[in-house]
């Protein structure tokens, strides 16, 4: 069996392998002696988000624009926080994520078309997990050990691969607390419901 360190290393390598708009790149695990191992694929978020303008083109399709369309000419407001009431744009944007400002995560140098790490390095949106990991180390550690985040596929990687969620599949970056949901219907429990067999 392959060492855990090697798996972690491979995960990190793939996650820092730069942006790709196509399907998620499989993780190739170098294992010359053991049984063949199938890839662990981490779903990648889409590239830089787009914003709907509210108008439609001549074919009726909604027009959306990239961040840089406006942000190359509009200087960033370093004081704007997620809770700040914005007066000109993004008025509907509300958030609850600590005391972060917009540019804690977004990169104003590129007109918000990318993310920015705490050390000032540019990071494509698809690699968002590295950004989250800066503050959420324990969760990232658990994730790398398969103990955080949903997945599907094979427990036995010598028989098949696995697909894993990334952070923003489940946590909205602006309000990361997992949302409240209605539970699915449970089985009838004869100890707590009267009359029916369980």
């Amino acid at each position, binding site marked *: *069996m392959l060492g855990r360190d090697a798996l972690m290393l491979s995960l990190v390598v793939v996650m820092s392998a730069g942006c790709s708009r196509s399907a998620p790149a499989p993780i190739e695990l170098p294992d010359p002696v053991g049984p063949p191992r199938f890839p662990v694929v981490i779903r990648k978020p889409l590239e830089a988000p787009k914003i709907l303008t509210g108008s439609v083109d001549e074919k009726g399709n909604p027009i959306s624009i990239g961040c840089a369309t406006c942000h190359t000419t509009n200087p960033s407001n370093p004081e704007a926080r997620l809770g700040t009431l914005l007066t000109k744009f993004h008025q509907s944007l509300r958030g609850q994520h600590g005391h972060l400002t917009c540019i804690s995560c977004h990169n104003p140098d590129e007109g918000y078309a990318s993310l920015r790490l705490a050390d000032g390095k540019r990071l494509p949106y698809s690699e968002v997990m590295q950004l989250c990991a800066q503050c959420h180390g324990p969760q990232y550690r658990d994730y790398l050990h398969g103990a955080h985040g*949903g*997945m599907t*596929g*094979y*427990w036995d990687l010598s028989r098949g691969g696995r697909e894993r969620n990334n952070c923003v599949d*489940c946590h909205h970056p602006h309000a990361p607390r997992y949302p*409240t949901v*209605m539970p699915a219907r449970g089985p009838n429990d004869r100890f707590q419901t009267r009359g029916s067999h369980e």
Partner: protein
Amino acid sequence: MSEKKPFSLPVVGEVDRRTTLKAGAATLGLAAWAAALKPMVEWASSLDRDEFFQKHYRELTREQLQVILHKLTFEARKETGKPVTVKDHKPIPGVVFAYALNLSICIGCRKCAEACHVENNHDRPSNQSYIRVFEMQKGGIDFEKGNTTYDRPVPGKDKYYMPVQCQQCENPPCVSACPIEATWQESDGIVVVDYNWCIGCRYCEAACPYHARRFNWTKPEVPPDEVNPNQSYLSNRIRPQGVMEKCTFCLHRTREGRMPACLEACPTGARVFGNILDPDSEIRWVLENKRVFVLKEELGTKPRFYYFFDK
């Protein structure tokens, strides 16, 4: 001195009161006997000879098992019209399964119970599932105060959620309770039931401290188009009426190397599954690095289902 009583048969000749009563009771008794036997006769007529004389699963030769699997497959296809295959999944050598559940991130959405319901061809009217999710008050672990019928947005304030299913105990009380060895533990730790051998006495249900076993009061009703065709003799094939069933860690999936259905359905990633004998497995990392506990440890059942916290 001795008066000679003339010989007579009880019902011929002189008929006294006692004899009449006896005869009447015998007639009534016969009728009652026939009535009592009626369901048995009806049941027996639906049971063919091969099934009645089928040996215990573990005593079947490979050929006999093949015949049975073929028959079950054929019958299931006929009944459902779907390309059902009833296979026999054997334990993988060198594998012992264990499961861990993160109580810090489970939100009680019951997606696991729902996935179990679908995957294991459970009875639709009772919405049966091998998983029961307890809504518990933070600060204690009193199942008597737990609620399994909650129906409001989750997670609730000051609540935590505890899904309970078969703990696949290393020392399973349900197995010792069975009078006919219709349930046993396999080499990968999964406790299974031979549905064709079980007599439905429900001793195992009473013996299980986790209340993880279920009884088929009726034959499970599953609409043909909802039947999961990937079936196994010891797990999710549609059970007959009157037998016990239980969680098998989805052995028809996990013995093929796949994750159990409840894990794949979990939206929060609260569930961790794997081979406890593999030192590099995720489950081993959890057991070695997290605060882990088992339910009712004091009973000595040694569950292979663990609960843990993040903090």
